[in-house]
């Protein structure tokens, strides 16, 4: 078997080696300047933003609906009508309870101040992103700042703003792996620390004595305690002194198109 020999010309090989070293050094300098200087980093967002907005508008358009079969559309409509009918009753009960709650708080002198929120379109979300982060189309132009809370479906806290650019911002999700958050669990109002495990899921480690069951509601401690999660599973072994409570957010982040930022 004959293999092609390397070039025997020393000058050619030296020239190629110098070229490779120069290119590698150039790449390292560029990488260093990207890490060190924010305006250089923002160039990536400058190129990405129009493509993300284009992708978002195509995904949200009704163009592809023209290609669906007629029967599929009829079936979908019937299923949605049924869901709407069932949801109507729940909504009425919910409204009554909310009104009663507001009246009681008013009597006790704790009327909720309405938070000012800004609607944001999600440009990039999991699973496109490898991290549990959302990229939103509002930034300092809408007075967004680091630490502002992000809510979905009107009242479910899902994350916080972590980075703000002139026309975009990034929010980390509370369910990011390793993130910890103080929550209140179940009817007994047990305070616990929820740890994110990704994909809208959390776990809590509690002593066995604490009574928890599937379906218990979890809220963030506040005067306006909105639902943060619902217990899905409680795991423990007979000899364990602790139990692991697994719960998930009622919001499926990968299906969201809009969120609100509390500014």
């Amino acid at each position, binding site marked *: 078997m004959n*293999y*092609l020999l*390397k*070039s025997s010309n020393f000058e050619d090989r030296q020239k190629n080696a110098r070229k*490779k070293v120069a*290119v*590698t050094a150039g*790449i390292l300098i*560029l*990488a260093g300047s*990207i*890490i*060190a200087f*924010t305006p250089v*980093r923002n160039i*990536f*967002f400058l*190129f*990405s933003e129009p*493509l*993300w907005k284009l*992708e978002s508008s195509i995904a949200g358009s009704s163009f592809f609906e023209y290609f669906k079969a007629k029967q599929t559309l009829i079936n979908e409509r019937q299923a949605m009508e049924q869901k709407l009918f069932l949801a109507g009753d729940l909504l009425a009960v919910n409204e009554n309870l909310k009104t009663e709650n507001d009246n009681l708080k008013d009597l006790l002198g704790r009327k909720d101040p309405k938070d000012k929120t800004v609607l944001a379109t999600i440009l*990039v979300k999991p*699973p*496109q*992103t*490898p*991290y549990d*982060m959302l*990229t939103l189309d509002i930034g300092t132009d809408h007075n967004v700042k680091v630490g502002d809370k992000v809510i979905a479906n009107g009242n479910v806290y899902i994350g916080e703003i*972590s*980075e703000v650019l002139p026309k975009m911002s*990034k929010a*980390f999700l509370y369910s990011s792996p390793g993130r910890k958050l103080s929550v209140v669990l179940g009817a007994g109002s047990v305070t616990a620390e929820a740890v994110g495990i990704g994909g809208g899921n959390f776990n809590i480690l509690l002593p066995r004595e604490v009574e928890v069951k599937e379906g218990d509601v979890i809220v963030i401690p506040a005067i306006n305690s909105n639902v943060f999660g619902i217990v899905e599973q409680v795991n423990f072994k007979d000899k364990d002194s602790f139990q692991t409570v697994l719960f998930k957010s009622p919001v499926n982040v990968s299906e969201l198109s809009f969120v609100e930022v509390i500014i």
Partner: protein
Amino acid sequence: MLKHIILDALLFISVIICPWWVTVILAVGILYHLRFFNELVLFGLMMDILYGNFTSNLHPLDYKFTIFFIVLLLSSFLIKKRLKFYSK
């Protein structure tokens, strides 16, 4: 040279619009298709900046893709030496 530029542009677009695992597969494919692809590190950095909770504090967890691509690049130097496709 033109092929190199086209592949770079393809990977750039893939970082922005495709899921991250598509970008990784494409990056590995291009790395082993081209003889010299050191700019892979820049694409890793780009993914960390665009999608991560990026800071300038040089915390390793903020640079997962950068570090992963550096490891891929360094390992490719060793692997390519042992593959006859790259002998010249």
